[in-house]
C-alpha cells in the first residue's frame, strides 16, 4: 500500500481533503467542487496521473445533489484515484475541465444532455446522442420515462396483462422484495 499511501498523503497535505484507500490500487477522495480541477491538475502535472479513465454522474435525488466522479489513473504507479464531489441538483453547474483533458469534453456534453448539468465555457453541439430533445433531461430520476413513452408513442393493446417478472418469480420462491426495491416495480 506504499504507493497508495504516498499519493493519498500528497493530496491530503496539499488540499486538506477527505480520503481513504478502498483497496489495493484504489484511492478514494471526496472534495469540494471548487477544488476538483486543482486536484486533477495537481495529480496530472505533479504525480503522473496523466490518464482520465472516466467521468460519471449519480443522481442523488434524496439529498438534492448530483454526485460527480472523476476516475484517473497513473500508468507508472498503476493506481486509480476516484475523485468524488457533490453539486446541487438545482441549477447544476460544474467547472469545465476539458482544458486539462480534451476527452472530458465528450463526457461533459453527455452529462449536459442527460442530466442538465451546465459547464460554463463548454464548446460543442448541444445535441449529443439525442435529437431535438425539449423535455427534462432524460436520465434525471424524476423524469418519468414510462409516462413519457405512453404519451409520445403508440401503445399497442395487449400489454396490459404483462406481469412484473420479479414479482412473479418472488411469488414462486417466497422471497420478499424489500420496500426500497419495490419502487421500481411496475405499479
Amino acid at each position, binding site marked *: 500500500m506504499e504507493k497508495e499511501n504516498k499519493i493519498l498523503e500528497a493530496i491530503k497535505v496539499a488540499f486538506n481533503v477527505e480520503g481513504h484507500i478502498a483497496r489495493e490500487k484504489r484511492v478514494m477522495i471526496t472534495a469540494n467542487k471548487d477544488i476538483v480541477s486543482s486536484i486533477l491538475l495537481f495529480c496530472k502535472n505533479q504525480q503522473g496521473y496523466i490518464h482520465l479513465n472516466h467521468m460519471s454522474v449519480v443522481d442523488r435525488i434524496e439529498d438534492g445533489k448530483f454526485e460527480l466522479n472523476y476516475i484517473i489513473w497513473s500508468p507508472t504507479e498503476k493506481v486509480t484515484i476516484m475523485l468524488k464531489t457533490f453539486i446541487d441538483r438545482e441549477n447544476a453547474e460544474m467547472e469545465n475541465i476539458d482544458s486539462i483533458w480534451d476527452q472530458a469534453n465528450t463526457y461533459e456534453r453527455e452529462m449536459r444532455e442527460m442530466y442538465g448539468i451546465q459547464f460554463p465555457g463548454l464548446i460543442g453541439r448541444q445535441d449529443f*446522442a*439525442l*435529437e*431535438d430533445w*425539449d*423535455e427534462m433531461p*432524460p436520465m434525471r430520476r424524476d*423524469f418519468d*420515462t*414510462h409516462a*413519457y*413513452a*405512453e404519451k*409520445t*408513442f*403508440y*401503445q*399497442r393493446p*395487449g*400489454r396490459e396483462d404483462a406481469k412484473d417478472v420479479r414479482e412473479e418469480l418472488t411469488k414462486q420462491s417466497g422471497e420478499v422484495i424489500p420496500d426500497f426495491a419495490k419502487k421500481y416495480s411496475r405499479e
Partner: protein
Amino acid sequence: MTSNNKDKQTIVEYIQNWSRKHSLFVMAYGTGCGAIEIPATMTSRYDAERFGIRGAATPRQADVLLITGYLATKTLKRVIRVYEQMQDPKYVIGFGSCTINGGMYYDSYNTINALDRYIPVDVYINGCMPRPEAVISGFVQLQKQIAEGTANNAAKYKENLEWYRANQKKIIKNWRMPDYNW
C-alpha cells in the same frame, strides 16, 4: 401488382411476381440487437441465398428493408429516408418484439413502440430475438405474399401518406426532410 388474387393475375404479373420473389435484395441496414442474427442467416449454416435473399448496399438497389429490432427516434428519421429512397417494389420486415409492441423497451423515452404506425410493414417476425429459422420463415411468408400479389404496402404508403406523415412528425419534431415524388 394491382390484382390481389392469385387467380386473377395475368400471366405477365405472374411471371413478374415469380421473379421478384426469388430475388430479394435486403438493404444492409441494422438497428437494435437483431442485426446480429443476419450474418448467421446469410452464412453457410442457414444459407439464405438459397431463397434468393442477399444483401444490397444502397437503398436504391434494395427490395427489402429489415428493421432488426428497437428503433430509436433518431434512427427512425434515417429509416424513413431510406424507405422513401427505395424503388418499387419494396417490402418491410419488422424483426423482433421491439418492432411489434416495444418489447422490453416499451417504456423507453427514446424508442418507438409500434413500427407500422410510421412505415408499412409486410411481415412481422416475433421473438426476442428471432433465430435464423424464424427469419427465413418470415422471408418465406413474404415470398408467399409476393407470389399472391398481396404485398403491395408500398402503394398503401403512398395512398395514406398523410396519416403516416402525421405520425412521423409527432416523433420527429424538427422535420427537415426532402420530399420524394415517386
